[in-house]
């Protein structure tokens, strides 16, 4: 028997590439996930998040690069990788024809648990995930949030040391989303390592210790949520002047108060400015009033993925999707 030396890295991937025809969906991504951390992969729709995760989970062959999980080579030992990683995909992958309990029992049995142990684990997981009442309901009767939680529970039945979560809350309503976040935090307290993907900066911020930002198959930034947010300011002040002719004057006031250049937006009289602290918005508004400049609207917004993209890449994630769609047309 070989003992793989303990490594501090749960995931070590270098130069991952996946091509579909001529299209490079993942174009040389490096990832290092440390043991015990929650690592977030943040990127817009179509960035290559799912494809990256699938390659690491042996669900798609890699077209280039190298990856290992806890020191085990992904390409050469796929069966071992599957014993180390619990995968919760973007779309719930549980059996519609079975009940919640039967699903978990089956996945337990398939992974070598005895029947009684699988039953106990299933009951325990259903309890932990707030699904105890639905244990004997067929999945077709489950709500979206319940399916997602059951799906997550299904990835945990063999207690894998590493868990992949692909967009765990996309499509969930805000309350269910909060519940899912709590569940994920509990997992991490239990010592699991989590690699999750998301389109939402606030989700990555809530859950992840470190984040990689990817865009069109390329990693464009990496850091802690704080580092990323600092690069964009903690929030944005969105202003719209009543009289578009006053825009330049207003911009000068904003620059003076915040010591920061506002970005003019396409609509007449509109501009956005990064705020180091949301409270500074009041200073801007007071200064505008004192200069006799009248505003039509003012909003303070937490930074979005789009602003992170703006700050890192200098272009907007939205623009790019539009541009791509136009190319497609």
């Amino acid at each position, binding site marked *: 028997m*070989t003992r793989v030396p*303990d490594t501090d890295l749960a995931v070590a991937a270098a130069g991952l590439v996946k091509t579909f025809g001529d299209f490079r969906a993942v174009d040389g991504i490096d990832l290092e996930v440390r043991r015990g951390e929650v690592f977030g992969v943040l990127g817009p729709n179509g960035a290559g998040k799912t494809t990256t995760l699938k390659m690491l989970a042996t669900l798609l062959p890699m077209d280039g690069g190298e*990856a*290992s999980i806890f020191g*085990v080579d992904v390409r050469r*030992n796929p069966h071992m990788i599957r*014993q180390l990683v619990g995968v919760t995909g973007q779309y719930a*992958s549980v*059996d519609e024809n079975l009940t919640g309990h039967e699903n978990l029992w089956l996945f337990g049995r*398939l992974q070598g648990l005895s029947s009684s142990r699988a039953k106990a684990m299933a009951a325990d997981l259903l309890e932990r995930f707030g699904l105890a009442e639905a244990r004997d309901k067929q999945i077709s009767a489950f709500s979206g949030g319940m399916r997602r939680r059951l799906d997550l529970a299904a990835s945990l039945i063999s207690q894998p040391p590493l868990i992949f979560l692909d967009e765990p809350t996309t499509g969930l309503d805000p309350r269910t989303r909060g519940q899912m976040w709590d569940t994920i935090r509990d997992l991490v307290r239990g010592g699991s390592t989590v690699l999750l993907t998301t389109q939402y900066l606030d989700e990555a911020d809530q859950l992840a210790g470190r984040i990689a930002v990817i865009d069109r198959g390329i990693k464009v930034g990496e850091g802690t949520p704080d580092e990323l947010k600092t690069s964009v300011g903690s929030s944005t002040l969105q202003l719209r002047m009543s009289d578009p002719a006053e825009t330049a004057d207003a911009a000068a006031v904003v620059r003076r108060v915040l010591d920061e250049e506002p970005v003019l937006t396409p609509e007449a009289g509109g501009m956005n400015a990064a705020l180091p602290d949301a409270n500074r918005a009041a200073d801007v508004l007071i200064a505008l009033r004192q200069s006799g400049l009248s505003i039509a609207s003012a909003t303070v917004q937490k930074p979005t993925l789009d602003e992170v993209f703006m700050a890192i890449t200098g272009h907007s994630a939205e623009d790019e999707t539009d541009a791509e769609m136009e190319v497609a047309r």
Partner: protein
Amino acid sequence: MTTQSTLLPDRETAEVLDRTLVARPSLRDTVDQSIAMAWRAMKKMRRNPEQFFDVTIQPLLFTAMFAFIFGGGLAGSVQDYLPWLIPGVLAQTALTACMATGTQMREDMDKGVFDRFKSLPIARIAPLAGPMLADVLRYGIAATLTLLTGFLLGYRPDGGVIGVTAGWALTIFAGWSLSWIFAWLGTVARSAQAVQGIGMMIMFPLTFLSNVFTDPETMPEWLQKFVAVNPVSQVVTACRDLINDGNFSAHVGWAVLGCSVVVAVFAPLAVRSYSRKI
């Protein structure tokens, strides 16, 4: 950046984080996993009882219908036709049931739960072998009902309990073996409808260009040649020998061998194309 990967592919087991990992599932694991998958398929059948239509209605209907339509014309009377017909219908229903196995497998594979099966450390054959195992129940029902309908119409085979049981078992084994062809089709076809369509194209010549309904001696010579090599004819002849005469003839040996060859060829093909399909 370099990745540290110390494992060689030929190592059977490795210790990682105090867990023992295996490089591939053992035979024992494979059997256990296939049985768990069969359990899943059984649950699914119980909750979708329409999956039993082809193995309940059809044997009843076909046996009675063909007996009354062809009986008088081909053998003089229904009574005299039954020893010829029943083993033939046995094979025919088993083959029809096979087709449904492939169609359903294709449908099943498009479902989300198969994504999870792929991510689990299980034998690649288990998700296919499980439903195939569960379908033995369907072939069992079909064979039993066909024989019962025959008995009801006055069929009294001379093969005795052993001969009839052996013919019944051979039908089930043939159904299970041939279903690997349809399982393979299920893994390569683009949709369940395609499996159904291709299945029909295979099934009709196999059942009608055989000795299921009538003695091939009345057929043109070129057709007789096909009928002789048609595996369905082999199975039907073997069943006739067993059920009507209690005779474990060479045909039985050939039928069993032929079916085994089908499994040996199509099971690996099916697993291979299933593993490639992502």
